[in-house]
């Protein structure tokens, strides 16, 4: 059973559809082609919050919906919890 969904191939983050615990091995489904991905969570990710499925370097853009949703000042790694602590808007 999947525990997160990813909007599109190429996105850096998926969205938890159930609470994910640190250390948990979890399956995600890409919504555009139904492919799956398996990763190990490096933090707790509550339902609706994001988990990294790609490494993003410091100051790199973060992609979701196939488009930038902000940048990661310090970067993050696959499995990290991604939210306001490690991603910032590019707009205001």
């Amino acid at each position, binding site marked *: 059973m*999947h525990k997160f*969904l990813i*909007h599109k191939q190429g996105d850096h983050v998926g*969205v*938890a*559809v159930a609470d994910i615990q640190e250390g948990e091995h979890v399956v995600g*489904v890409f*919504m555009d082609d139904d492919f799956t991905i398996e990763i190990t969570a490096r933090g707790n990710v*509550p*339902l*609706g*919050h*994001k988990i990294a499925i790609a490494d993003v370097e410091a100051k790199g853009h973060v992609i*979701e*919906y196939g*488009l*930038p*949703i*902000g940048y990661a000042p310090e970067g993050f790694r696959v499995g990290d919890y*991604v*939210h*306001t602590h490690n*991603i*910032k*808007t*590019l*707009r*205001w």
Partner: protein
Amino acid sequence: MSQLLGYRRENGKVGIRNHVIILPVDDISNAACEAVASHIPGTLALPHSYGRLQYGKDLDLHFRTMIGTGANPNVAAAVVIGIEPNWTKIVADGIAKTGKPVAAFSIEGQGDLETVRQASRKAMEFVQWASELQRVPIELHELTVSIKCGESDTTTGLGSCPTVAQVVDRLVDAGATVFFGETSELTGGEHLIADRCATPELRQKFMAMYDDYIAEIKNQGVDLLGSQPTQGNIAGGLSTIEEKALGNIEKTGTKPIIGVLDPAETPQNGPGLYFMDTSSAAAECITLMAAGGAVLHLFPTGQGNIIGNPIEPVIKLTANPKTAATMSEHIDVDVSGLLSREINLKAAGDMLMDYLCRVVNGRLTAAEALGHREFVMTKLYRSA
């Protein structure tokens, strides 16, 4: 699809509710309007906070919202009460252009009690008259539907907004009219909207409206995190305005944008999908859309916004299983099966479309049954 039934008004427009409203032109006439509504069951007072010493574009918007609210096809008849006769007459005359019964009363020179006496008698006459109006067969293409989401989270972009998109595309294909808005909440995806504008002129008009709104926000020189996205958005997992906007835009479907409207403006380009320049705050936005003529609203929520509108039924849907469980009395359509992948988008669209038809035909939405009647005027700047 079952036969739709609605109220055909004097000007041919179709409504799905049959309200007799008691409309204050200004804040100080609220008490008289509420007194009339308490005397005459079946009438609906619409108290609000403004209407005095406004000027310029702000006054234009005030009148447009007042007149549009009274002119909305969900309104059978209107009693208008203001402190002085001139502005009261402007609002009443504007509504009367639809051909529906309107009566105007001003308080100056006679006081609340005499005004309430006269207005109550008229309200009673209107409500008895309206009670005999019958629902008649109508077509889907005769509806004007508005969309706006709220207390969004990531489930909104994953599930409830794509569900609305299914219905928006079906409505537009059927020849109905749909409004979306939330200008600041397009930030990060404004180019997606601009690209869908049907003509270069519309694209230019849209981008000018968008740039104006964003300039106004930036002029305040503050960090918007916590306001846009809201604290609730952040609690629900949304991290930036761009992420919120891309989820928001999901609900607009795939059709071209054939008109770009000022707040509370009535569409002029025929049926199709329109952008309206609005705040992203739910009550302000839906009040403007109802004033533009929308008779039914689709409202995706993530964390559980509880909004309603006095004249326009608001259908709320969520894809968040926690919200569906903990705030079930506010949720009309639960599409959380999209997250577990137990249902697909088409099935979710069918569920929402079916519910829309039931609400058109008279089923009360959760917000209606709970008495949510948020009526909030948009004010552009301080009064003189």
